[in-house]
């Protein structure tokens, strides 16, 4: 019996315990993650997919229309009634995830409360760049250790820079351990509970710009945080180790546009520099191809048909030529990515006529990805 060779994504599903879907915004990263998770569940795995800011219709398809849950919800997969697999989905709530970490690492409940009530802390949890990425990684770590799941599929936030995700744990640790933080802590260690802002030249400068009162919360935060840094850092290290472990597979998602291809290639390079490999590449939204005629042949056929008075047939050939030219142009755009990652890693998904708005639509994407 001839079994077809395993594709790159087949191997990902066989070997990975964690799959990270990454790429620029708007390339269908979340959809790809959800389709991969659905397929894994159909194969019998217990899968949880973590989404970040999914389009409304995709959220509906996954039963997440109520918004942030931060806890996995079981998705009924009616089309696969006999599978022992399970599909769970959740939408990341970075702030709640961060609150959970504070509770876990605070030495006393009072310390946790002090931090959670602090305005500066809210800004970190809600707005500091990199926090969302770190919380996605943290959630991935928690779910990976949860016995309910064999496989965690995680979407990454639409960052300006794809490498933010890999770097996020270190970035946040660095922020918490910032030089300014140590500076702020000095007086506290000496027992001066009230810090003289004016005495610190750096603080005085910042105070001049933003107003001194803005700093009060920051100082209170860093003081409240004292003693938690080590626990926080160890956890960040553990999360970072998991991101770099061989059970974590990276799937790059791109669309046939220069910017998303550049971003995917950049991320592939970054992974290689960390001795990590791109497990598979998904190129979404490609123009479909019809028949084998080249654009040039179709154009010639159109001219011939026109010359023999068949305007209707000429229009059909002209249409074929236009679609084919567009498909060729797209292929040229993704060529460098194909060259970088190897043709066997690439999975192509054609431009579908409608957005995914139910599990059937997701199944359709999965069928393209896994050539069922």
């Amino acid at each position: 019996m001839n079994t077809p060779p395993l594709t790159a994504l087949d191997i990902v599903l066989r070997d990975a315990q964690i799959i990270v879907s990454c790429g620029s915004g708007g390339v269908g990263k979340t959809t790809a993650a959800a389709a991969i998770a659905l397929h894994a569940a159909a194969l019998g795995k217990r899968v949880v997919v973590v989404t970040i800011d999914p389009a409304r219709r995709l959220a509906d398809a996954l039963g997440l229309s109520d918004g942030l849950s931060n806890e996995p919800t079981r998705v009924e997969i009616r089309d696969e009634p006999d599978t022992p697999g399970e599909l769970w989905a959740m939408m990341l709530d970075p702030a709640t995830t961060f609150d959970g970490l504070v509770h876990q690492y605070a030495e006393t409940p009072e310390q946790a409360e002090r931090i959670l009530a602090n305005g500066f802390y809210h800004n970190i949890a809600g707005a500091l760049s990199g926090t969302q990425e770190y919380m996605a990684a943290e959630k991935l770590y928690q779910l990976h250790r949860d016995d309910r799941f064999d496989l965690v599929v995680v979407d990454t936030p639409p960052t300006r820079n794809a490498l933010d995700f890999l770097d996020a744990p270190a970035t946040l640790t660095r922020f918490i351990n910032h030089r300014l933080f140590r500076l702020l802590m000095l007086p506290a260690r000496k027992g001066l509970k009230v810090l003289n802002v004016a005495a610190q030249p750096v603080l005085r400068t910042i105070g001049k710009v933003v107003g001194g009162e803005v700093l009060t919360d920051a100082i209170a935060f860093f003081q409240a945080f004292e003693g938690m840094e080590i626990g926080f850092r160890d956890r960040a290290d553990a999360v970072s180790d998991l991101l770099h472990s061989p059970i974590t597979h990276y799937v790059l998602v791109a669309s046939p546009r220069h910017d998303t291809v550049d971003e995917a290639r950049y991320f592939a390079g970054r992974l290689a520099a960390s001795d990590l490999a791109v497990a598979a590449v998904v190129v979404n939204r490609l123009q479909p191809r019809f028949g084998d005629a080249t654009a040039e042949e179709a154009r010639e056929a159109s001219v011939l048909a026109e010359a023999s008075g068949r305007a209707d047939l000429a229009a059909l050939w002209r249409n074929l030529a236009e679609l084919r030219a567009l498909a060729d142009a797209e292929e040229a755009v993704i060529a460098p990515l194909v060259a970088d990652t190897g043709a066997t890693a690439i999975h192509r998904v054609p431009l579908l006529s409608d957005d995914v708005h139910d599990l059937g639509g997701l199944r359709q994407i999965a069928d393209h990805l896994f050539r069922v």
Partner: protein
Amino acid sequence: MDSLQFFGAARLVIVAGKGGVGKTTVTAVLAQAATDAGLRVLAVELEGKPVLADLLAHTAVEVLTITAPEALADYLDSHGLKRVSKRLATSGIIDVVATAAPGIDDIVVLGKLKQLERTGGYDLIVVDGPAAGHAITFLMSARGLLDTVRGGPIRTQAEDVLEMFHDPTRCQVLLVTLPETTPINEVIETAYAVEERVGVQLGPVVVNGVDIGDPIAIIDADEHLVAAAEYRNHRRASQRDELTRLSDDLALAQIVLPQLPVAGITSAEVAELATALVAQIQRLPA
């Protein structure tokens, strides 16, 4: 409407839209069409890899990149804090400051744009704004800072920016989208959020990459020819439906830019789209 009237509506135009909708292309196309109409134009990019200079290489448009760290350093310099500005930027304290007062990085960028709008000597400044999610926070930064910062130069800056936002002759936001369900849903949500929460004037919505053309007559022919024609007809019809839904749900004029048969945009395509834009502007009511 003629081009001069269109481009004369507001001096500062911030182009916003979700990643992948062609925001940068539209920025370049607007800049080129405006400079072709004889205006003195500045195109500004805020993030990502600088590409506007390439796209506008053969035009008279000036191109400028503004990043938050540079804008903050500039800001500190101009407030007599030159000595510390470098140290602040290099030591990463900027992050701590930006966290203490979220939006401060955005407000220094907006402040810089406001300064260019007031004193730059340009007829039109087109800004390739941040992607949709961030666009709201970017535009909201001024209002947010008024709540956290109770005095000092940053507060003044925020007040000045807000004043500019509330004057439709000074500033407009132009939203870009694609003729597909999710991008249309998102642009409608963004439009309401921008109007209600920021109070800035919205210009026409630009729908990018529209496959313009009449239905192809299906005849008895080779199956691939028929399948290709049916696919094309179906896509054009669903795009038309999306455009109709957009006009039903959002009372803003639409500018439709055609999909070009290329996958990558260069200065040649920008010039072609600028011509298409001018034709669309002429169809708008004066």
